[in-house]
């Protein structure tokens, strides 16, 4: 008689009585069976549970990326504005014990000898700028602000920074010695918001006269030809005059400079130029920095603070997300305790059942990530590119680097797997018989 059970001899011995598969084979069996269980559960499981799980993972993913990405976008824009309007790729200042940059001759030789490099040496000094000094009587003080006055070569400056393009009223400097361009933070009425807490000169109009009192008590009158708004606080709190007149007033030597902004061509890494400039004789008396290193400390602090806020928001979102996933999985596994107990009785191992839940969450996470990426690429990034968050010091777009996204995806992946593994493990590891009998 052909036996359907393959039991030709009822006295057959037990199969593989003490046989245990090798670890590798066992792992293969676990993965295969877990994948089978997971695929069927995904295919035919509760639609509501699937939708809620994907939605939670999608929201967590967006929360992790978007808030932090916007904050980074703002700080990146601040950095870019500082670089474009003040420092260039490389910035040289004298070290603290010197008033002016040392050995400028060798510096200029290096710069002139490096093809494609553009630079703008500046002479700066602190001064007091006054306005309406003719109309107010001697008994009353005219509007006055303290500011850094930067003596620039307008032609060189235009090749290195974008200050010329950032003139929002009037025009940029030319060769005329008595012209001045004021930063927007020194005046009122040209921007909707104002940085800095200091006083201003008031509503200065193009063509008006201002007077500068220098530290050596020299007093000189200038005609306002332009207002610049770079959204970089350092630049917008400066006044720009022709370098030649400033050098005369300060009686400084022709090779004395307070700062040099340098822009390198694409084929020259700023780091290699920095190294070269540091290696010149007496190069250690100067502070040669990259644009990132030259960022004013306030901007650096702002970057750190925004980064921290972004991480806190992301961590909170992640925490809420993993707790929600934990609860969903816990409820799901608890409600199936009896089925799982019977599968364990049939010989389906606990790691197989746990892994089947992990496979499911990986699938839902991939769906969440794909949806999240579509939302970011199709909706959010174009939206914020068109409507950046406008702040006094920057305009924030959604700034997402590959490293930033990769780290967060990995963190979300690990968190989701852990928040699935723990509840599944807590329930499935329980005594098989108790699970079957519902005890």
């Amino acid at each position, binding site marked *: 008689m052909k036996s359907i059970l393959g*039991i030709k001899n009822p006295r057959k011995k037990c199969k593989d009585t003490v046989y245990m598969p090798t670890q590798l084979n066992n792992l293969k069996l676990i993965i295969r*069976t877990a994948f089978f269980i997971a695929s*069927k559960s995904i295919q035919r499981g509760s639609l509501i549970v699937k939708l809620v799980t994907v939605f939670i993972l999608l929201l967590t993913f967006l929360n992790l990326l978007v808030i932090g990405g916007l904050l980074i976008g703002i700080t990146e824009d601040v950095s870019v504005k500082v670089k474009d309007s003040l420092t260039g790729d490389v910035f040289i200042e004298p070290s603290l014990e010197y008033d002016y940059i040392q050995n400028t001759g060798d510096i200029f030789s290096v710069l002139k000898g490096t093809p494609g490099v553009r630079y703008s040496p500046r002479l700066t000094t602190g001064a007091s700028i006054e306005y309406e000094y003719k109309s107010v009587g001697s008994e009353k003080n005219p509007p006055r602000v303290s500011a850094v006055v930067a003596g620039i070569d307008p032609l060189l400056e235009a090749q290195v920074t974008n200050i010329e393009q950032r003139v929002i009223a009037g025009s940029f400097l030319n060769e005329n010695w008595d012209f001045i361009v004021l930063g927007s933070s020194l005046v009122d009425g040209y921007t909707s918001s104002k940085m800095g807490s200091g006083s201003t000169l008031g509503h200065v109009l193009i063509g008006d006269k201002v007077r500068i009192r220098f530290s050596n008590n020299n007093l000189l009158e200038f005609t306002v030809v332009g207002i610049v708004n770079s959204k970089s606080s350092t630049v917008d709190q400066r006044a720009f005059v022709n370098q030649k007149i400033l050098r005369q007033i300060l009686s400084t030597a022709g090779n004395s400079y307070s700062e040099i902004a340098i822009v390198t061509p694409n084929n020259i890494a700023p780091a290699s130029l920095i190294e070269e400039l540091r290696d010149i004789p007496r190069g250690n008396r100067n502070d040669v920095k990259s644009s990132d290193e030259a960022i004013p400390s306030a901007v650096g602090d702002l970057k750190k603070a925004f980064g921290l806020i972004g991480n806190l928001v992301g961590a909170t979102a992640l925490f809420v997300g993993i707790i929600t996933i934990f609860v969903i999985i816990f409820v799901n596994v608890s409600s199936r305790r009896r089925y799982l107990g019977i599968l364990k009785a049939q010989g389906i191992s606990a790691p197989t059942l746990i892994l089947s839940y992990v496979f499911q969450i990986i699938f839902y996470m991939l769906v969440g990530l794909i949806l999240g990426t579509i939302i970011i690429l199709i909706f959010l990034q174009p939206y914020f590119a068109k409507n950046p968050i406008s702040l006094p010091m920057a305009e924030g777009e959604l700034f997402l680097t590959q490293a930033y996204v990769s780290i967060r995806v990995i963190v979300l992946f690990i968190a989701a797997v852990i928040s699935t593994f723990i509840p599944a493990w807590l329930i499935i590891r329980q005594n098989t018989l108790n699970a079957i009998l519902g005890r």
Partner: protein
Amino acid sequence: MIKVNEIIKNFTNGDIVTKVLKGISFEVPDGQFLSIMGPSGTGKSTLLYQMGLLDEPTSGSIIIDETDVLHFKEAEATRFRLKNFGFVFQDSALIPEFTALENAILPNLMAGYDYKKSKEEATEMFKFLGMLDQVNHLPSQLSGGEQQRASVIRAIAGKPKILFADEPTANLDTEKSRDLMSALLKLHKQGQTIVMVTHEEEYAKMAQRMLYMRDGKIEKDTIL
């Protein structure tokens, strides 16, 4: 051959010790259909769980084909159950998202059998027990009796040495209970060793041999 030697099972709750199995010994030869019968609370299911390695007795030994199975570690016991035991419980507890066929082939996948072959063999089982038309039905699309028969197929799909059935007819009406019993008898005729716990004398007497239990002891051992 299953040898059950002096099995004692006590449940402890604080200081209270309840003696459920009081030194039970018997043997089940290969291919036998054994029913364990007795009133509620007499320890029938507890005895079956000890034999099926789902629970650990307080003392005693269970030897299956010369192997003392109570010495297995958890993973070894799971593996042993997978390869050698099939279980049918009071309710079918089929996985709701799996078709009847998928429920049946799952233990075989875990045992390392080829998917296609597992499917073919399970389909043969469905045919054998008259459920070929329902192989692709989800449990929700099966009647209670069909679900229980599908759970029998799941239990025997891996061709286990021993099929343990714990009150398999408890949730079925008379007609469906008889259907299920005829399925078990059909399997027994094929050489399947079956150990079935029931409190219904009519079904217990369909087996080859009946153990009657009372107060944690075997009161009567009858060859039918």
